[in-house]
């Protein structure tokens, strides 16, 4: 069964960029969300295995999503992909249970490296 992956970013460019940068042999269904609220709605109704999560978004930001995922004990892995790369922010999202932090724009190499490390590919 293929994994369902959620890409959550308010920028279409960023979503496309990420989709393109995923490893070619990565067999997954991809759904997308434009903000944190949309992401939570999808996470609550669909079986999502992996989330690529932006931090700065309207409605509900990435930190808010991570908090909800943690509070509702949702069974999904979260990789944060963000332009906000300050150490303080990285520390905060890791404390909230994110698997990894990838700097934007995410390169194919970096994504492959992280996904390999956690056995996703």
């Amino acid at each position, binding site marked *: 069964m293929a994994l369902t992956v959620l890409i959550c970013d308010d920028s279409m460019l960023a979503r496309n960029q990420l989709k393109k940068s995923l490893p070619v042999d990565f067999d997954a269904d991809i759904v997308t969300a434009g903000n944190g609220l949309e992401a939570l709605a999808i996470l609550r109704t669909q079986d999502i295995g992996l989330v690529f999560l932006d931090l*700065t978004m309207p409605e509900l930001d990435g930190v808010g999503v991570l908090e909800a995922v943690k509070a509702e004990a949702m069974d999904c892995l979260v990789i944060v992909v963000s332009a*906000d790369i300050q150490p303080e*922010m990285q520390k905060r999202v890791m404390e909230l249970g994110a698997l990894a932090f990838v700097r934007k724009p995410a390169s194919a190499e970096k994504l492959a490296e992280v996904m390999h490390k956690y056995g996703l590919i």
Partner: protein
Amino acid sequence: MTPLQFTEEQRDCLQELVNVAMGLASDKLARYLDTLVHLQVPAIELVDTLQLPQHVNQRYGEQSTTLVSLGFFGDQGLRGEAIMLYQLENVGVIAQLLGYSDDDSSEAEMLTDISSVLTTTSLNGLAEQLENSFSYAAPRILSSRDQHFSRKLTETASQWQLALMVDIRYQLTDYSFNCDMMMLIPGEAVLRLRQMLDKILAGF
């Protein structure tokens, strides 16, 4: 659509590039200042230059505001002017934050210095995203401690076809304030910028 207007895709693309650029800049600044300065990824808005004075007036109203201008030039005809807008009560705080409390710098000197650090760091990040690089003209204070700045904007607005308003927010653990960076880009450079954005978009 006139050639100067942006499609939704182009706007989205530019916003994302500026986000990434600001992210780079904030990281650099935080490391440089070695403080818990947090520069949030900013809100970005494209404003028709004819509406710019009105837009700025609405935002700043009667508060006294200082404008510092810094010209930038890149390859392939990309150029413009970055304007930082400060509310004066914030100036002292920004200065203290950047370590200006200890010497004989005048307020004007602090302002131009701070502006040049903030704008060039952000713009370098943007240039990098566009596979370009910028050179800069020395910063100038356009108006200070007076109320003429919206008139000044009205006078200069006709030279520019696009204004990109970037709302930058600095945050410390117990204090936060805003200042705006405005990028004014002349018509021909807007066309160049759109071409560059299209090229990036075509890659996805």
